C-alpha cells in the first residue's frame, strides 16, 4: 500500500493539485496504516476509527484553487453545490466546515466523498483504494473552479437565476483569471496515422498523456478512442488518461463481443460518431473554460443547440440513458469534428492520427478562455 501512497502523492503534485509533498497527507489502511508522514496525528487515527474506510487524503490545494475555494466559502455556506454535469452525477455536493473538528468531519464524510475545511484544506476518503480519494479531491478542485467562474459570468448577465457577484468577488475573479488561463498551446502528437495495434496503443497513450499534461482533463474523467477497420480501441471506464497502457479495450464495432462491459461510459457516443463521419480518432476532455462557457446562458434543453462562436454546444448526460449525450453529440460532431457538451466537456475528432483532434480540443479551450474574458470585459469587468 505504500506504493499507492507514493503514487498518488506524486500524481497530486504532477496534476498541479498541490504545490509540494508537504501539502498533502495520504493514508492507506490495511491491517496497518501506510502514509507519507512520519507521524500520524490523533485526528487522523480518530477519523479511521469513526469511519469504515481504507484511504484518506488531507490536502491543502495549490494557491489558485485554494483561493477560489476560500472565496466560495467566505459567506459561510455549509454546502457547495457544483453546477457541472460530472460533479452533479458523482459527488452531488460538497460539505464545508470552518474548522477541523473530528466529529463534524466524520459526520460530513459519512454522507459525501469529500469536504472542504476552511482552516485546513480538502479531506477525501475511499473504501477500496487511494485512487477514490484522489479522484474525489481532483473532482472537488474541478467542480469549485468551474462553479466559481460560471457563477461570476452568469451572475453578471443575470442568467440561470445566479445572484449578481459582489465587488469583492469580481475583484477576486479579475485577479485570478490570468493565472487560471489554459497552458500555452503546444501539440506534441505525431501526424502519422497509427497502423498496427502496438502503434495505436502507443498513439492513444501519447494522446492521453498530452491531454493531462495540458490540463485539458482532470482526475479519471475523459476518454479516447481510435477506429481501425471493424475494431475500435477505447479507454476503459474510470481509467486515467495518463496511465492508459493496460486500460484500453479492443472491441468489434458490430457488438459481437461483450468485452466492452469495461469500456468508457461514452462508448456509444464514440460509436455513433464513427458511424456518421469518416473520422478515426476521438478525444474527450474536460477543458475548464470550455465547460464554463458551455453553461454561459440559461440551462440548455435536451434538444437544444447553441454555439460558442462556431463551436456547437449540445446537452446530454453521462452514459446511455434516455437523455444521454449519445443522442445529441454525434450529429453535432459530424459537421464540426468537435462539440462541447453542456456543463460536461469537449469532444474532438479527426481522421488519421490524434494530432488534429488534440489541436481542436486545445484551441477550443483557448477560444473559450478568450470568450470568457471578452464577456467579462463586455460586462464592464476588465
Amino acid at each position: 500500500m505504500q506504493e499507492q501512497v507514493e503514487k498518488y502523492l506524486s500524481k497530486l503534485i504532477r496534476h498541479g493539485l498541490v504545490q509540494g509533498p508537504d501539502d498533502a497527507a495520504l493514508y492507506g489502511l490495511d491491517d496497518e496504516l501506510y502514509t507519507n508522514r512520519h507521524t500520524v496525528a490523533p485526528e487522523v487515527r480518530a477519523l479511521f476509527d469513526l469511519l469504515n474506510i481504507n484511504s484518506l487524503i488531507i490536502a491543502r490545494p495549490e494557491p489558485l484553487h485554494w483561493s477560489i475555494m476560500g472565496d466560495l466559502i467566505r459567506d459561510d455556506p455549509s454546502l457547495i453545490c457544483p453546477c457541472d454535469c460530472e460533479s452533479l452525477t458523482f459527488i452531488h455536493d460538497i460539505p464545508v466546515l470552518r474548522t477541523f473538528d473530528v466529529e463534524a468531519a466524520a459526520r460530513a464524510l459519512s454522507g459525501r466523498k469529500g469536504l472542504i475545511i476552511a482552516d485546513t484544506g480538502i479531506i477525501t476518503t475511499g473504501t477500496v483504494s487511494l485512487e477514490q480519494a484522489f479522484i474525489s479531491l481532483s473532482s472537488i478542485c474541478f467542480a469549485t473552479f468551474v462553479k466559481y467562474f460560471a457563477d461570476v459570468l452568469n451572475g453578471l448577465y443575470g442568467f440561470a437565476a445566479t445572484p449578481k457577484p459582489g465587488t469583492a468577488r469580481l475583484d477576486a475573479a479579475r485577479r485570478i483569471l490570468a493565472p487560471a488561463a489554459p497552458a500555452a498551446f503546444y501539440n506534441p502528437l505525431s501526424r502519422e496515422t497509427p497502423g498496427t495495434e502496438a502503434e495505436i496503443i502507443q498513439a492513444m497513450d501519447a494522446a492521453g498523456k498530452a491531454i493531462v499534461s495540458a490540463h485539458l482533463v482532470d482526475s479519471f474523467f475523459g476518454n479516447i478512442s481510435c477506429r481501425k477497420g471493424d475494431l475500435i480501441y477505447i479507454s476503459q471506464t474510470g481509467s486515467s488518461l495518463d496511465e492508459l497502457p493496460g486500460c484500453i479495450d479492443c472491441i468489434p464495432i458490430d457488438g459481437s463481443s461483450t468485452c466492452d462491459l469495461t469500456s468508457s461510459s461514452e462508448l456509444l457516443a464514440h460509436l455513433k460518431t464513427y458511424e456518421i463521419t469518416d473520422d478515426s480518432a476521438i478525444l474527450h476532455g474536460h477543458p475548464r473554460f470550455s465547460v464554463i462557457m458551455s453553461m454561459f446562458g440559461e440551462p440548455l434543453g435536451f434538444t437544444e443547440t447553441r454555439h460558442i462562436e462556431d463551436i456547437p454546444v449540445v446537452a446530454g448526460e453521462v452514459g446511455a440513458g434516455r437523455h444521454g449525450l449519445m443522442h445529441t453529440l454525434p450529429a453535432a460532431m459530424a459537421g464540426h469534428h468537435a462539440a462541447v457538451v453542456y456543463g460536461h466537456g469537449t469532444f474532438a475528432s479527426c481522421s488519421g492520427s490524434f494530432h488534429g483532434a488534440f489541436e481542436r480540443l486545445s484551441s477550443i479551450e483557448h477560444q473559450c478562455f478568450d470568450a470568457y474574458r471578452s464577456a467579462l470585459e463586455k460586462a464592464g469587468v476588465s
Partner: protein
Amino acid sequence: MQKKRGDFTLSALSIDLSTRDAVRSTIDPEAGKTFLGGRGIGTWLLSSRPMVDALSEDAPLILSTGPLTGSRIPASSRMMISAFSPLTGTIGSCSVGGSLAIQMKRAGFDLIIITGRSRLRLILEIDNARVRFVDEDMPVDLPLSSVFDAYRSFRGSVAAVGPAAFSDCTYASIMVDGSFACGRGGLGSVMASKNLRAIAIRGSEHTVMACDPDGEETARADIIRLFDASPAIMGRSGISLCGTAALVDLMAARRMMPTANFRRTYFEDYRAFSAGRIREEQGPRQHACHGCPIACKKKAHSEIPEYETLSHFGALNENADLAAIIEANRLCNEAGMDTVTAAASIACLAEIRGLRYTGTTLVDKVREIAGARGDGELLRLGSAVLARELGAPEKSMSVKSLELPAYDPRGVYGMALAYGTSTRGACHLRAYPIAHEILRKPVATDRFSFSGKARIIKIAEDLNAVIDSIGGCKFAFLGATLEEYAKGLAAVTGLAYDTHDLLRLGDHIYTLERYINTLRGFRRTDDLLPERFFTEPGTHGPGIEVRPIDKTAFEATLDRYYKIRGCNEDGTVTAERLRELNPCRNR
C-alpha cells in the same frame, strides 16, 4: 398505511406448521434499527437458535423484506430467505428477486418466520391479513412450472420447492415466480423438511409512504443517473441489455473462466454460450424484479441462464452445446435445485472418472439428480460429499462444502480471499470483488495482488450485508453507491443513518454470522481454498499469466483479515467481540 418518522417497528408473521398457528407480532424496534431487515434481521433471528439442525422441526425458515421495499428507490425489492444450510452447515441466507417481497410488504408484513413441520404437505396462502393452510396432494415429482401454473389466477407471488427438495437433494432451491431462484445452500430442503410445498402471497392493503418524499425523489434521480452512467449496467453490453451472460466474453478474455472442473481457466468454445450467440439464437426479452429499471433477467421460450450457470454447464463441463445448457438450466428450475452446485458436482464426478459429460449426457446427469436415480444418488449430495465418498476429496472445488461459482480465484485475488471468508461457503456475492477487480467499479484494483485486499474485502462484506438487509440489489452498486442509498433510506424511513452508520451495522451483521458459524464449529481450516488453486496454474493468455496462488501470501492476507475483522487467529469470533460491535450498546 404510513409509518411514523423513524419508526422501525417490524411487522412479523410467525407460523408454526406443526400446530398450524399464525401469530402476528412486532419485532423490537431496537432490533429493527440494528439489523434493518432482510439478511440482518434473518441473521438476528437465527442467532437465537444457533445450534439447531438445519432440517429439524425447530429450525426456522425466515422470509424478510428490506425497509426500502415498496419505496421509489430503484432496485430495492429483493427478498432475503434465511435458514441454516443443510449443504454447508453454516448460516445460509440467500437473496432472491421477483415480486415476493413487494407482495409481502403490501400484505402488511416485513417478515415471516416459519417453524415446525406439517403432518401433511401443504401450501401456505397469505392474502393480506388472512392466512390459510391448504393441504395439497399434488405428486411429489410434479415439475415446478405446474405448481406455478396452478397459482396463475392467484395474482400474487409464489415461492415453491420442487421434486429435488422432496428427494433429499442437499442443494434444493426455492423458486420464486417461476423464474427467480433462491439457489445456494439448499434452503429448498429446509422448506421441504417442513412439508411446505409453496407459499403464495397476495398483498394490496398496505403501501410504503416515504417520510420525506422530496428526499426520496432526489435519491431516486441520483441513483438512476448513476445507473445510466455505468457501462456495466446500461452500456451497450451492460446487464440491462445482455443480462449476466455479458460476462462470458470478459471472463474468457481475462482467462478466469473455470474450465474442466477448474483444471484450466479458459474454454476455447466459450462463444457457444456468449451473450452474442444467445441474442442470435434465442432473441431474449427483458424481465425484471418488481420496480427495477435494470431488468437483468432474460427470457426467450425458456429462461436464459445466468452467467454462472452458462459457464458451469458450459466451460466447467467442457460443453459447447448451448441447447444442452439451456435444457440443463430448465431441468434444474423444474426440479428446484441450485444450478451452480449441480453443474460443479457433475464436473467433479467427470474428473474423478476421467470422463466428460457434455450435450445430452450432461442433460441426462441433471435428470438423474432431479429423479434421484443412477448417478443422481451421489450427485444430489453435492461435490464435497460425492468426492469424499469416491475417495478423492481434493477434486471437490468447494469451500465449506459450497462449490465455487464461475470466477476462477487464480485470476482475482480479492475473490480468492472472499471465497474463504464468506459466511456461507464459496460465494461471489458476499463481497462481490468482481466489481473492482474486473468491472472497475467504483475504481479498479490489481486483480493479481493481495495488497490492501484484507480490508477491502472486510469493508465490502459489511457493505453487502447492508445491501442484503435493505432489500437492495448487488448490481445496482455497479453504478450507485451506499452514499445515494443511505440518503434514500433516510428519506423513506426517517432514520438518519449515513453511509458509515450503515457500514457499522453491516460489520455487526457480518460478525454475528461469523459468530454463529463459530458456535457451529467452523474454524480457520474451513476458510482455505482447495489445494488445486495453490499448486496448479490456470491457462495463460496474451499478456496474462495465471499462476497458482501463493499459499503463504493467501494465509498472510487471511491473518490480516482476521485481525481487521476482530477474529481470533483461528478465525473464530468471541461473544465479547460481538458485544463490542453491538450498535445498540454504542449508540
